[in-house]
């Protein structure tokens, strides 16, 4: 009885320890309380306000602009809706560094130059909105899809019009999903460093930028820790607030696809064109040198040459990124499943609290573990990637695992199945498609992860694709960097397509 009671807490505590122990070790050795207090001044307050302001404005605009494509996704089941849904991969795999590069080029177009686009708040917000709109399309679209058609029909019978149905019926029902997407978007905008540094310039600083500048400049780990703490506390509190939204469960799930207007279709096509044209430009730049105006196949061949790999280990980085991403994705998916089978009332807060961890600070903490305890970089990279991806896997698997029919498990138990057998013969076959999706999502996130790898200086010990790409970019090898970037996009898109294929095939059989 006692064991049964503490079992859920044990898993949660295990997760908490994985992320708290390294920080405690770092704080104990390097942080002084007095130095943390020094950061509580007007300057920090202004930085915090700006961090929140740009993240909030970007999230609101992204949410508004994503409403129509979300409605389209919920009403139609065609190629366009699949593409709209797949755009969610953009914020997860398209490197922020590449986004900055593309927007920098766009910002240098004559018209944009006249508008003073670059190095302004406009540039930050536009890039943030582009980067995060797909999150709303995915979450809101899927939530709208789940609204039973009977509810819409009742409303119509009661005399509700199109707009009344949307604002008074649909919007309140999808509110929790919208808030979830809003939280993720706010976290991405709150913690994104590359966009602020690359497109905002010196006039704009966020907590994450201050952390990175402090870590590499003044070496005041206490100040960086203080900034990180503010970020963590704020985002955790925000998460708790968002998580308190009531989720509506629909038992009689029956959704009928509806007609869409021409405006909805045109807007959705335009949205898709904008989103994918930015990514497409990333691929085009692999073959087209924007600055010289020449098409060249040479860079994509060059990055695989022996000579080039002596300085920039592209082949090794592809292998490393694959191994790390694969291992992390596997561990995270298995761990999240175990965790979801052992939830307690604190689970949500415990897991999503890691969303607020500063990746730059986490990177430094992990480096310190290597310096002090000689833990190899591979293990540390796995730990870092594990911590940042568990919240995503948790959000992804939450509904399918928790709503798994208990009657099936009970029936298997009556038939004398052990928990292992129940998992292998009952749960695994039914949940396999969603496991594959979660695995591929984590794989894609890890494959594109930059901040931790950069802060840990992995380029010297365990080069991964994003840091090798950055090293080429910072040495002004634009064509070669674009070629690797294009390859990166193709790899992740292929993974997504394979995943979708497997998911559909397996769903069909069951």
């Amino acid at each position: 009885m006692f064991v049964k009671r503490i079992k859920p807490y044990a898993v949660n505590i295990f997760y908490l320890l994985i992320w708290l122990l390294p920080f405690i070790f770092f704080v104990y050795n390097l942080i002084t309380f007095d130095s943390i207090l020094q950061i509580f001044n007007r300057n920090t307050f202004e930085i915090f306000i700006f961090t929140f302001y740009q993240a909030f404005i970007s999230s609101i605009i992204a949410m508004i602009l994503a409403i129509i494509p979300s409605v389209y996704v919920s009403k139609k089941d065609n190629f366009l809706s699949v593409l709209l849904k797949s755009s969610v991969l953009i914020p997860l795999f398209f490197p922020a560094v590449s986004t900055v590069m593309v927007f920098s080029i766009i910002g240098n177009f004559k018209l944009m130059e006249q508008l003073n686009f670059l190095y302004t708040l406009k540039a930050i917000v536009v890039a943030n909105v582009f980067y995060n709109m797909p999150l709303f399309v995915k979450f809101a679209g899927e939530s709208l899809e789940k609204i039973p058609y009977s509810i819409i029909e009742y409303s119509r019978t009661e005399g509700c019009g199109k707009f009344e149905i949307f604002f008074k019926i649909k919007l309140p029902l999808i509110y929790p999903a919208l808030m979830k997407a809003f939280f993720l978007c706010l976290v991405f905008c709150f913690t994104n460093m590359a966009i602020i540094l690359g497109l905002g310039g010196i006039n704009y600083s966020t907590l994450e930028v201050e952390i990175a500048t402090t870590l590499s400049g003044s070496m005041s780990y206490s100040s960086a820790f203080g900034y990180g703490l503010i970020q963590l506390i704020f985002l955790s509190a925000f998460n708790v607030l968002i998580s308190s939204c009531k989720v509506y469960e629909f038992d009689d799930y029956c959704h009928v696809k509806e007609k869409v207007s021409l405006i909805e279709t045109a807007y959705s096509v335009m949205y898709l064109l904008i989103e994918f044209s930015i990514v497409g430009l990333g691929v085009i730049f692999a073959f087209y040198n924007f600055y010289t105006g020449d098409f060249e196949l040479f860079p994509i061949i060059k990055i695989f040459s022996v000579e080039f790999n002596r300085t920039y280990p592209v082949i090794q980085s592809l292998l490393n990124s694959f191994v790390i991403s694969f291992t992390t994705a596997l561990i995270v998916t298995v761990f999240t499943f175990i965790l979801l089978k052992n939830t307690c009332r604190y689970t949500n807060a415990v897991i999503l609290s890691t969303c607020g961890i500063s990746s730059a600070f986490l990177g430094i903490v992990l480096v310190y573990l290597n310096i002090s305890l000689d833990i190899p970089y591979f293990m540390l990279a796995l730990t870092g990637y594990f911590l940042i991806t568990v919240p995503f896997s948790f959000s992804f698997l939450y509904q399918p695992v928790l709503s798994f029919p208990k009657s099936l498990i009970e029936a298997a138990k009556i038939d004398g199945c052990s928990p292992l057998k129940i998992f292998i013969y009952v749960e695994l076959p039914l949940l396999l498609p969603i496991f594959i999706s979660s695995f591929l999502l984590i794989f894609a996130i890890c494959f594109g992860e930059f901040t931790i790898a950069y802060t840990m200086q992995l380029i010297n010990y365990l080069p991964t694709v994003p840091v090798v790409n950055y090293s080429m970019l910072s040495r002004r090898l634009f064509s070669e960097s674009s070629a690797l970037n294009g390859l990166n996009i193709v790899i992740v898109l292929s993974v997504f397509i394979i995943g979708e294929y497997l998911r559909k095939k397996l769903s069909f059989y069951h």
Partner: protein
Amino acid sequence: MKKILNFTVSFIFLLLLSASCGKKKNSNTLTVYLPDSYSWLKETGTCKSFEKKNECKIKFVYFEAAVNIVSRMSLEKSNPKADILMGLSRTTFIRAKKLGVLEKYKPENADKIISGNNIFSGFYATPFDYGGLAIIYNKNKLGGSLNSFNDLTDLRRELVLTDPRTSTTGQDFLLWTIALYGKNWKSFWRKLKPAILTVTKGWNSAFSKLETGEAAAMVSYASDKAYNIYKYHNSRFDVFVPENSGFKQIEGNALVKKQDIKQISKKYIQFMLSDKIQSKIFLHNWMFPVTEVKLPEIAKYYVKPKKYCSISNEEIEKNLTSWLEEWAAIVTK
């Protein structure tokens, strides 16, 4: 519960196992921390003869700038992994010395160093190369030449700088303005602010903005003309250095203070002063060697001022933190 326990124990076991694997150290490996602009040392195979002669292996660990090397050393202070630090500028040297991570060492061939270049008090670091800072600019985009620092203040969103908090070039430019304007340096920066297009983390990103035409001028080095003529066969950018007040950047190499300092570390510091290395500095690092070696023909394009201005190490040590804070308050607000 049993499963969770098994999982926990396996994970900890794996962690410990990998930790013990990581502890294997090779005493014949020399770990050198250096800015990535020094990658030519490995790429050209210049150090191969040293490795062969001393039967050792050199592990080069690259950082974006010397500033990052010192930050890393502050983490490694109690358990240093590096044997040698390369590319320390005056400010990063002062910070590293203050941290207590440098070991005093005067190489046997130190007398080869041309006088005036040893700014590293008491051989806590050995000079390696030097060069002058300069403003480089695209004359066509700017529509004229630059003749003084005051001309810079007339520009509007055309100048790109490197952040003195994260870059040595940025730090040295800040010191240059302080040396030039004394107590009035802050009012110069206030006037300069409208001229700034953006401030980048490092030199490379600033240069790419100039190269792609996004910016018209940037703070760089007086050897840029020579570099462009050598690499692109034309002088793409003009170089401006005030005639009577240039600013010299001297870079040095240092031994890391640790319990067992390897003999090869000392030999490496000496090797960096050898003619073999020093003669390669101009064409690879685009700086001047600190010993008397024959310079390539292209070195004549280096824009040399008549005089250099300077600030003492003591003054920098005393004020650097507050200068950086004051700079940030002016430029970022």
